[in-house]
């Protein structure tokens, strides 16, 4: 590191933290982002990626207007990582429709700017034509459209863009302490480098705490307080796009749940349980999986025939409202300036918020940072595109030029936009790098190597977040060892580290596979055990494997 003094230190590499780092860097503030794990490794990495119109929050018209406007901005700056899903809310009886019709009006109020049609009712025939697997007894359905973004890629692109504007991004750096003077003013941040094992410190006067479900812990390490409401949400993930359109339905308790085609998979979610557990240890429970399946079964009776590949679990950092269910807690956000609450001067924390509003949150907090620094600069994050979004990409021409399948290129385009050409250029010198390493997604070797060289991953899990390695039906059974070998080559790792990388990735995949094991996944796991334990003998390996938080105590 060349400097140990920054204008602002951002804590947390989720959607909000990376947005803040990008905004601060673009306004010319010397910015450091510290993330305890990897970019998008917690809450945002377990969401469905919907950049929502705010439909669920129609009681908060300001939020709806904000969401809608943000969608417009996202489509401007990041359209290469955005997909639009048509969504049906099938109705099985009239009471489903009659409960409240104001949502149609509130949704339709902003459709023009988002370039989607107004919400409308569809007949059963029209509904079944869109989605033939629907329950034949539906009496109608409500049709609307929402945009979805690749949440991993969004965070990474924000981080990379911040870096392009001079920010320093440090992953695997966990903030453990603050330097505070007698005046209660923050002067520096102390953090633990989890890769090197060293403790480091930097000087700064302003700290933005965007640690999500750990925000209260960060505040505590500054001897400050931050009440928060943590809420667990679980998803069940299917092996492919099992529906043509998204579906939303009311669950047994009246909450809305959804089934969304997402990248090459389908996501069924979510649950909402208040939690006080360590977010790192949480996994989906049998009850959560059944809650989701049984609720969606009411409109999609054949859902259990589809292949479930895993579950994923995250924690929402909500505004601390008591005595209301999760769904009634505001989806607006709060910026807590600790100095205004007799807390530490220079510490600013986030509560609440949504993926779609992360840029807005960043803009607001960066305005405040600018005030504190006495250097106010206008925000441009909604105008300047994220890397790769400059122009459209002609996949067909690229396929001909580089001799790579359209399918592989289209998946690469959805991650990189125009930047994909940088990957493809490598295959001129190294045609062997056109080899598909992850066949489920698919991902070619050149993209793995470029990701390792330019997107600062430390582990296979980090590569998974960057390019969806091992996220398909086989859950990394076949790509784990191949990608680990490439990582070992690129980072010049020891043999032990190569094996540890394999074990770590298997552990993380298993965390989600295990909870929903059934059907084909039984055979898939027999195969994985056969490869890594029976042949590879890794169950007997004496490498230095660290137990994961969710494995401890076993």
């Amino acid at each position, binding site marked *: 590191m060349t400097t140990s003094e920054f204008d602002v230190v951002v804590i947390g590499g989720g959607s909000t933290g990376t947005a803040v780092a990008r905004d601060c860097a673009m306004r010319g503030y010397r910015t450091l982002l510290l993330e305890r794990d990897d970019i998008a490794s917690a809450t945002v990495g377990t969401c469905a990626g919907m950049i929502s119109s705010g439909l669920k929050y129609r009681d908060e018209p300001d939020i709806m207007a904000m969401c809608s406007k943000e969608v417009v901005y996202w489509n401007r700056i990041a359209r290469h990582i955005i997909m639009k899903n048509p969504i049906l809310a099938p109705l099985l009886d009239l009471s489903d429709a009659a409960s409240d019709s104001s949502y149609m009006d509130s949704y339709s109020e902003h459709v023009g700017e988002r370039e989607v049609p107004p919400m409308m009712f569809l007949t059963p025939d029209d509904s079944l034509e869109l989605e033939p697997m629907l329950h034949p007894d539906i009496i109608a359905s409500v049709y609307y459209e929402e945009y979805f973004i690749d949440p991993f890629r969004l965070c990474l692109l924000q981080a990379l863009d911040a870096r392009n504007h001079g920010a320093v991004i440090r992953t695997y750096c966990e903030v453990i302490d603050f330097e505070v003077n007698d005046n209660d003013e923050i002067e520096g941040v102390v953090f633990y480098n989890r890769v090197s094992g060293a403790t480091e410190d930097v000087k700064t006067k302003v700290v933005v705490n965007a640690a999500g479900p750990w925000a209260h812990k960060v505040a505590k390490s500054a001897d400050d307080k931050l009440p928060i409401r943590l809420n667990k949400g679980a998803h069940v993930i299917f092996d492919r796009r099992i529906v043509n359109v998204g579906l939303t339905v009311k669950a047994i308790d009246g909450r809305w749940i959804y089934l969304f085609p997402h990248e090459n998979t389908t996501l069924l979610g979510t649950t909402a349980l208040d939690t006080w557990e360590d977010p790192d240890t949480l996994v989906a429970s*049998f009850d959560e*999986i*059944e809650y989701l399946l049984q609720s969606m079964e009411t409109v999609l009776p054949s859902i*259990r025939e589809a292949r479930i590949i895993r579950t994923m679990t995250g924690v929402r950092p909500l505004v601390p409202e008591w005595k209301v269910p999760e769904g009634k807690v505001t989806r607006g956000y709060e910026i807590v300036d600790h100095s205004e609450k007799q807390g530490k001067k220079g510490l600013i924390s986030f509560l609440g918020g949504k993926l779609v509003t992360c840029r807005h949150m960043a803009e607001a907090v960066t305005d405040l940072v600018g005030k504190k620094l006495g250097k106010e600069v206008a925000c441009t994050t909604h105008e300047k595109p994220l890397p790769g979004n400059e122009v459209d990409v002609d996949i067909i021409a690229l396929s001909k030029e580089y001799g790579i399948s359209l399918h592989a290129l289209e998946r690469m385009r959805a991650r990189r936009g125009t930047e994909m050409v940088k990957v493809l250029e490598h295959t001129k010198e190294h*045609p*062997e*790098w*056109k*080899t*598909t*390493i992850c066949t489920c997604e698919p991902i070619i*070797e050149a993209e793995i190597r470029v990701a390792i060289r330019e997107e600062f991953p430390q582990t296979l899990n980090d590569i998974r977040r960057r390019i969806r390695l091992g996220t398909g039906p086989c859950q990394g059974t*076949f790509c784990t*060892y*191949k990608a*680990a*070998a*490439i990582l*070992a*080559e690129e980072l010049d*790792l*020891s*043999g*032990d580290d*190569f*094996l540890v990388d*394999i*074990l770590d990735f*298997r*552990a993380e*995949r*298993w965390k989600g596979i*295990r*909870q*929903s*094991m*059934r*059907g084909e996944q*039984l*055979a898939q*796991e*027999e*195969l994985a*055990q*056969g*490869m*890594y*334990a*029976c*042949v*590879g*003998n*890794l*169950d*007997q*390996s004496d490498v230095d494997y660290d137990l994961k938080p*969710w*494995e401890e105590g*076993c």
Partner: protein
Amino acid sequence: MDIEADLVVIGAGMAGLVAGTIAAEAGLNTVLLRKGQSATAYSSGAIDVIGYVPEASEAFASPEEGLFILSRLYPLHPYSIIGYDDRIETEKIVDTIIERARETVSWLKTHLDGTLAPLDGEFDSNIHPITILGTTKPTCLIQKTMNSGNLTDREDSVLLFVGISGYADFNPSAAAQTYLEDRMSTGSSPRKVAHCVVQVMPFGKSYNLSSIELARHLDHEGSIESIAEQLKEHIEQVGATHVAFPPILGIQNALRNKTKLEEMTGTTVFELLGFPPSIPGQRLQKSLETIFVKSGGKLLLGHEATSYQREGDVLKSIIATTPRRQIKIDAKAFLLATGKYIGGGISGDENGLKETVFGLMPVTGDYHSATDIVPSRSTSTLSISPMGQPIQSCGLSVDPEFRPVTEVGTEWVVNLFAAGAVLAGYNYSIEKSGLGVAATSGYNAAKNIVALIKEVP
């Protein structure tokens, strides 16, 4: 269409093919149904007998030692069952288990001699071949193409790992690094390990090469020479005495290719143990099918057992189905060798497990009913560990004759037997016992079947 047979074997992996061959050799009219690809074809092609007892960290020096200990600790293990016979005195049980396993191993070696998968190795010692990860694992028999000769005995041996450009299933640099560290930690030879990459271009393609493409390419006359040419320089550079290839040296001509490479380079050449899709696994599968057919057995490809007819305590017939036809097969005895989850013998949903052909009751590794277990609760939170995943020990419980039993502990019918991975009570991935259990249980179940049929007039 109806067929009559003495024995119908359902499943064409190691267990079914060994059993079918034994039965056919004993003169039984044997029909074997093969639905699709068996788990045997996915295996590394080496034949494990017993490497570890569960949760142990020290490998057994030999299958003999392993079975001696295992049969005392796990009296219901499929290996242990082969020693239970009314005619055998209690103190002879362990000896019988060891003898019968030894007999199976030597039967395999003899029968696979001259096939595409001839074997090396002895029942009296486990060997530790190198895998494509650069790790080693204990096993009993390896295919002759995997024999690394005096690699670890020679003080001055130098090992060269050879990768193939555009073939992602094997990375020579990671394997070399891992193996070298392993050698250094134990202070044993080879003390020098290197790696290199050669070009092999089936159909002129330089990327996305698969094991099967490479193996078929190398089966062709003349293809191995270009590899030998490329290797010479690398071998000279590091002074390699031994050369390790991924397991792709050919389907038909692998052994000949090994010999040719050895002659041309003056080194010992061998294949590593690999992952699926596995060429040595396919060589083994083909070889087992060949010896079965040679012994007079009938192999029905693409046939799945879909229903059965039972009268009292006797199974009368099964219906074998293909997309085009259905055949009723009457037989005196039946062997279920359908494998576990990969093979399709056992399947499961969120509510429990079932046996797929006859609806028999699967049990857990602790011999409790598995018909209503939640699969995730029969797992360990650790993905890869010496504890393994308990769900992989589920399967059928059998009597000393290898006949599946019902929940009251008696056999379901008198003439249905089971062998191989469909059996409960062992986890082959952590024991390193998969093909050994399959062969031994198939071998002994077949002996029991022959005895049963020969005593029926």
